[in-house]
Each structure stands twice: as C-alpha cells, then as structure tokens.
C-alpha cells in the first residue's frame, strides 16, 4: 500500500512538473534597423505580429521620417498638439535628462542636427557659425511644456528629434509587453540597444552580451571588444565611429553638442551604458559621449544607477578602453 502511495505520488509529481523551458526566437525590421527577441518559456506565447504592430505604433508616434507621426505633427505645428502616451513618456524622460545633464542632452537640437546633414534631408553644404547661431535660438528644452495632455512649444521654430532615446524606449515597451505575457527570461535587441532579464534555458546559463568596438584604424572592420554578463537590465551604445562623414579632413559625427551646436570632437569613440531601463541608458549614452572621458566619469560618480564602458583614442592615436567599477564586475574574463 505504502509502495502504491509512493508510486501515485511520483506519478502526480511527474504530471505537474512543467515541461522544460526552451528558446523561442523572433526577428524583424523596424525603425530603419533590425530587431531580435529571444525568450525562454515552455511554449510559444508571443507572435511576430504583436511585436511588429507595437513597433509600428511606436513609429507612428515617434518617427521623424514619417510625416504623419505625432512627432512630425508637433514639429510642423506652431504651438501645441494633442500628445499620445509614447510621445509624452519620451519627452518627459528627455526633459529629465536635459535637467540632469545641464542641457547636454536636448531633443530640441533637431534644427541644428538637420543643418549638419543628420536629419531627414540631405544637405549640400555645411552650416557656418552664423547659421548655427541663428538655429540655436530655437534650441532649448525650456521651450517645451505639457498642458494637460497637450505638448506645447514656446516658439514655432522649436522642433524635436527623439532619435537618441526612442530606440531605448521602444525596447522598454517591448519588455513590458513580454512581462505582461508572463515571460521572465528574455533578451530584446533593437538596433544594438538591449534589454535582458533572467537566464537561458534549458541550461540556465547567464546571457552574454558583446560590446562592439572599431578596429585599430578606420579601415579595419569593427570587432567585439568585451563580453559581459550583466544580469537584468539594459545596455545601449553610442558611437562616433559609424555614423559620420568627412569634410575637409574633419570627421563630422552625428553626435551634436547641444550647448555649442557643433559636432562633438573629443577622444571618445564609443560609450556603452548599463541601466535598469533602456530609455535611461539610451538617453545618457549620447550625453556621456559629448562630455568627454573626464567629465563623464565625474558625472557618473553622482549617478550610481548608471554604469558605463568607454572606448577612446589616446593622444598617441592608439585605442584604449576603461569602465566604471560596476561595469568591470560584469566582464567575462577569458
């Protein structure tokens, strides 16, 4: 009898033990780049469609490349428009970052970015100092405000570009979607911006993230500089080594210092930021790029919620890297 009970119990245990988790992968194109999602669960519980439509929805709100988007309508408007949840979330986060960085990160920089040829239109010649000065009259996040659900600008010429933060935000929106479905082990990547949680199954290993760096010179292909296993959180990278063009022997990078209106020229090649949320990491990676190494480290001392890893060019032209103490802990040593 006892034997039978044990057998019955074993059978019950076998019946209720869940099937092992395994990897499910989805991928697609959005926001001018690719996205990949790997999640670990016993069954497929997420459709390509649900991700794709979420990303399309984000695009209709935040893309300056879509003339009908909420952000384009704001840029075309002379004062206020009815905002939506995504635009409000992103602008609010951007205003917080604006304050925290003393104006280095500023989404109203858009007219200047466009003048440098990194907007939606191509430019035939580079802006001169007079033009930059004129355009800067429209650059200041203080010109933005919310009136209830309406987003307003103080001057009609104020235009915003949330490219520096929207991808990170989109990754967070996707993470929320996964978590709503009860998924607790996943990695989401959109255009190199990453959010991850949990572990890989069936083995239960930690997830590993490679951080890309340029080669020793600009004619070399990029390579992975570091591999880290950061646990739950977000990772984004901002770099001057890919999106740039050359004019009269000068590198014009897409990262514009909002305080000056000129492309950032310092020793930093790329900054990788780790934070709890991707929108935070994404907002600060460009700001840290603009600060330069010394100021960035000083800034990070007051922001324990951020960890960062820098690749920079030394005075002698060689490439070196350094990271915050927190970052060093995540590194996987060979």
């Amino acid at each position: 009898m006892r034997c039978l009970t044990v057998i019955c119990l074993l059978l019950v245990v076998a019946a209720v033990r869940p099937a092992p988790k395994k990897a499910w992968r989805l991928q697609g194109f959005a926001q001018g780049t690719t996205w990949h999602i790997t999640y670990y669960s016993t069954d497929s519980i997420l459709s390509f469609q649900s991700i794709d439509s979420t990303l399309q929805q984000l695009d209709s709100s935040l893309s300056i490349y879509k003339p009908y988007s909420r952000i384009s309508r704001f840029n075309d408007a002379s004062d206020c428009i009815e905002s939506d949840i995504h635009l409000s979330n992103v602008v609010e986060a951007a205003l917080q970052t604006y304050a925290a960085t003393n104006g280095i990160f500023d989404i109203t920089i858009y007219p200047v970015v466009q003048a440098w040829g990194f907007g939606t239109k191509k430019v035939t010649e580079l802006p001169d100092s007079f033009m930059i000065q004129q355009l800067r009259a429209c650059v200041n996040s203080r010109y933005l405000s919310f009136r209830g659900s309406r987003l307003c600008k103080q001057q009609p010429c104020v235009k915003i570009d949330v490219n520096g933060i929207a991808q990170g935000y989109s990754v967070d929106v996707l993470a929320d979607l996964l978590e709503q479905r009860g998924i607790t082990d996943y990695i989401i990547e959109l255009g190199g911006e990453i959010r991850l949680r949990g572990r890989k199954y069936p083995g239960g290993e930690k997830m590993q993230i490679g951080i890309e760096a340029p080669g020793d010179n600009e004619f070399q292909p990029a390579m992975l500089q570091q591999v880290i296993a950061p646990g739950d959180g977000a990772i984004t990278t901002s770099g001057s080594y890919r999106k740039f063009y050359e004019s009269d022997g000068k590198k014009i990078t897409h990262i514009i210092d909002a305080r000056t209106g000129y492309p950032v020229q310092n020793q930093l090649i790329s900054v990788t930021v780790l934070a709890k949320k991707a929108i935070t990491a994404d907002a600060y990676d460009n700001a840290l790029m603009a600060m330069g190494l010394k100021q960035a480290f000083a800034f990070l001392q007051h922001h324990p919620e951020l960890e960062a890893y820098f690749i920079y060019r030394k005075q002698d032209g060689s490439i070196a890297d350094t990271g915050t103490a927190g970052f060093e802990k995540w590194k996987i040593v060979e």
Partner: protein
Amino acid sequence: MSRRTFLRQAGILSGGLLLHHQLMAAYSSRLRQTINIGFIGCGDRGRGLLHVMKDLPEQFKVTAICDILDFRLAQMQKEVSDDVKTYKDHRQLLEDTNVDAVIIATPLNMHYPIAAHALAAGKHVFLEKTMTYNISEAQQLVALSKKHAKQVLQVGHQYRYVPLYFRVKEMIEKGYLGKVTHIDCRWDRNWNWRRPVPDGYTDKQVNWRMYKAYSGGLVAELLSHQIDFVNWAFNTHPDEVMGTGGIDFYKDGRETYDNVQVVLRYNQGNMIGNFGATCANAREGYIFKLKGTKGTVSLLVNEGVFYPEPATRKELQTVDGVSGATKIEWNTDGGIPILKEKGKDGTWYALKDFHKCITEKQIPASNVITGATTAVCVHLANDAAYAHSVRQWKPAFNFST
C-alpha cells in the same frame, strides 16, 4: 575556438562596412594628374567603362575614340565632348600624342595585336578581359609587357576590385570558411545572347561572340570572371581542366557553345570548381558558391550571404546580443549578409587603380601575370570543352614577374 578568435571573426561579419574607404585608400593616387584616354572599341563594354570614367573627371580625360564600325563610333561620339578625336584605325589613334593611355574593349581576337601596338606606341593599357585569345598570345604579351616595364598594363577582371568580392577573399584568407573544397558557378540566361544587327553590317561584326575566330564564347566572356576570382582568392591555378558542351538550343549558325560546363581541378588547393553556363534556362541565373568546412559563401553580383555550418553557427552565437552601432544580422534562412553597404561598382575602383598605377608607377592588382594565368585557364577550358576532353596545366603556364 577561443573567445578571442570568435571576437575577431564576428567582427568581419558584424562590421567591415568601411570597405569603401579601405578600397579607396588602396587605389587612390597621391598625385593629381589627369590622364588622357583613348578608347579603342566603342561597344557595350567600352561605353560602360566610359560612363564609369565620367565619374572620375580629375583622373581621366577622354581625348580620342576609335571603332572600325561607324554606328558604334557614332553612338560613342554622342556621349563625349565635341573636341574628342575619332578614329577608325587604332594605329592612327596610337600615333595621337594627346593620348597617354588606351582602353581596349574589342572582340577577344583583337586584344593581343592592339595591346602589342599600344605598348610599342608607348601607351599605358587597360585591356578588357579575357586578356588574350589564346595561350601563345598570353605568353607573348607577358614578355612584351616586361620589355615595356614603365608602362602599365591592367586587365579588366574587375572582381578583384568589387568590395563584396574583396571581402570574401579576406574571409577565405582568415579561415572563415574553413577548408574550401568545392566551388559552384553558373551564369545562365534564357535568350539567344545576340545583339540586333543594324542594316549594312554583318552578323560577325556585331555578334562576334558567336564565332570561334573572334571569341571564346560563354567561358571567356562570363565564366572567366569567376575563374579569375578563384585564382586570385586562393592564390592558385587549376592543374586539370575537363569540359563539355554543345550548341544545344540555338541552332542559328553560331559556332560557340550555348550550353557549356567545365570542371577545374586544383591539386595544390585541393578543390574542384564547377563552372557552367546555358542560354536556355534563367531560373538560377547567376550562382557563385564557395563551400568550406566551416561555412558556405553564396554570392550574387553585388550581394553575398555567409551560411555557417552548424558547428560554426554555434560558435558565432556564443553571445546572445551585441551592443554597438552594427552587429551580426542573421537572415531568416540562417545566413549572414556579408556586406550591407554596397560601395561602388568594381570598375570604378579598377579605374582608380589604373590611374594610381600610372601616376605612382605601380603594378595593378589585375595585371599581365594574373591576366595571363586566367587567359590560360579560359583557353584550356574551351579547348577541353570543344574536344570533350581533359587538358593539363603545364609548367610553361606558370608566369612570374
């Protein structure tokens, strides 16, 4: 594979989009000097080269054009400025002191005699592929070029200048594909490969590719590109060439095969290369696949995809994500696109190299030695195909500078 190796290898796939800069750096001259160009041969390829050259006005100025066919000359004349001189006889063009270098884009049988005249006349030469009509001409041109060492002789095998193919060579050299044992190439079409013959001209004048006296047919005109690439990428040549073919569909009086298959055996390289073309099916069109123990590269003219073998795939996926401006992108069919930015046409870089070699007195990447090696391959392949037999490489075909 150690992590370090992986990191390096992932790099070539995830990035490397600065290849245009890489090629620019390799093929740009430090010297500002405009070279006066004479075109000999104003057919499709000649005009194609002219269009690319118009993109390089600082490097080249067209001063003369020549074709024995009036309608060809008239076509080209419309596309150049009025002060460009026209000639019907290439020897007269070669006497023109306002010509520094010539582009030879004529039927294959005329490549050698015109190139020889041009070298004798002191001109630099850009000679279209295939370099020569037969082996003895290849040998003679090598000897002749050595006598005129100060003049540049470049051969129009532009795969050596196409960013995509450049990258694939790099992948091969870095062991990315593992050991490549098999190469499959096709260049198929479903039409007669003829051009319309204007009134007053003969079929042989316009459709010279159909006649053995003028052309090496599909092998010389098309497959020679891939044959040359294999020679270049693996730094080798075949040791044994088998061939077959026929005039199997277009029984329209042509002499060169409309359906051909050659198999090249590379003993040193431990490889087999299959090169085939038909005029009677277009389903696969262009195929170029390099199959190695670690993966396959599948190439189109401007696109390439790397398909890792299962073990390699596992190694490439040792990280779960990559943060950075670019990253490895997997296709839905399990491949990794090799080059996301296409760069310019190979001919553009080839002409840059021509300019650089003239101004800086260097030897081009596609030169008389490499051109001769491929010309021998093409000739052996045609010889084997027409005889339905096997041809062996001989020590006399090993050219060196």
